[in-house]
């Protein structure tokens, strides 16, 4: 699985939505599945999958799939 697929799978698992719905434009609090509780599950999932420890500001800024990619790149996760 490449990093893009891993990211999609992590979002899909944490939010309980099909992987094909995980697109760059998907944004926090715009679908019922991505509420604050799901956000916490998502952060835990991303930290596990990519073996990183996110800072408070990064957790708060991670408000879309596109944003998640940008932030994870700061932690040396690269998306081709």
């Amino acid at each position, binding site marked *: 699985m490449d990093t893009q697929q891993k990211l999609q799978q992590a979002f899909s698992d944490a939010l309980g939505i099909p992987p094909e719905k995980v697109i760059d434009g998907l944004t*926090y609090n715009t679908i019922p*599945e991505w509420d*604050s509780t799901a956000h916490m599950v998502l952060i835990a999932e991303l930290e596990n999958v990519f073996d990183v420890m996110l800072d408070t500001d990064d957790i708060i800024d991670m408000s879309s799939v596109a944003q998640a990619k940008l932030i994870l790149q700061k932690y040396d996760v690269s998306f081709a």
Partner: protein
Amino acid sequence: MSHAELMIPFIEAHRYSERVALMDDTDSLTYRQLSEAVERRAQNWQQIVALHRPVVMMLIDNSITSVVDYLTALSLDYVVLLLNRECTLATREQYAQALTPNAVIGDGTVTFLHNDPPSTDARLSLLLSTSGSTGAGKCVALSQRNLTANCDAILAYLPIVAEDITLATLPLSYSYGLSVLHTHLKAGATICFTRHSVFDKAFWEVIKNRPVTSLAGVPSFYEMLLRLRFTRMTLPALRYFTQAGGKLAEAHVTSLAEYAKQTDKAFFVMYGQTEATARMAYLAPHKVLQKPGAMGQAIAGGEFKLTGENPPDGEGELCYRGDNVMLGYVEKAADLAAFTPPEWLATGDLAVCDADGDYTITGRTKRMIKIAGERVNLDVVEQAFLSILAGQNLTLAACVIGEDDKLIAVYSGELSGEQNAQLTDQLVKTLAIPKRNIRLLANVTIALLDNGKIDYASLARQQKGVA
């Protein structure tokens, strides 16, 4: 009644104070302005509702106008059924049918329904739902005496002062959230609301800029804070924080207690139930590191006992006595007429008591779990699951087990992935429980006890670590 005589609960001592009582993201109201707003609203409502002590259904959220609604209704001695504004239309309709309210109130507006005088016990003041926003569960009936007694007992141990600014993140329709409102109003402190969640930058700006001096939350709130590295934050104005509404994992309790110790704050672990207005016990903050699983001792004026104790550890059902014990339960309008309050409230929780007199919750007598802080009766869920299976003509042995935040529907045999997805979707719809809290488990042997009942205990042991 002229408005000058209107007694407003909780705020009488400082009703003309210029201190800020309520604040949201854009507005604020001083105690004097709050009193005036209540007086005006009371005059308006009296034009619309001529009845003495009408039963009203009140839909509230965490807003200034909802607090004005609530205090107005209490001042006018209405019997108030308090519901979360976010509850479903179906839930409202169920309560409307069961309790036949005279009016519905929300957002400062009264919608008059009928003029039939309700028959209500003279002590009855407030009805709180036991099921949060999921479905129309039975209500807990509380008196003004219950509210006052619990408010005073909480003020006797929490260090609330008039200079405080608390952030009310718990819904006001929930007994714990309501207790935060009552105590801070009584102390003349400031209650702050925000529409932002902990994962919004604006939430932390509110915390730092007001600045917020205390926080109150259920386990999921603290799990989020810890995920956000709360224990690494510098929050000099924050003096103390409280946790109740279920058991927070001991590791989390310890992290929070260590943070409190290092930063000279106090962390209160507390225990309560809507049936006891809100609060029954708290653990002295200096004991939290030493006893991270305990919930402490009864509040002032309250008393615990254990019944049906089992040696050797002395575990028994926790019972509580005090002026904050409810009048009783209400399921239909006829129940409002008269109450026989229980002297001892059987909490349904199992507990042990240590040599210092501190109590620790060890389990529950009923098949009940909490999902996102809201009670879920596993027997009710099981009935729903069985009827969903029957509706799809699936003849399988099935039952429901679970632990907090995890509902496990198990069945014998095997179903397709598509069938599983359908079952989950139907459970989500029927029960209003988030999908992430539901697991389906196939190929489970459902063993029975000698009396023919399902052996839930052995099922739970089997599934531990599997799901």
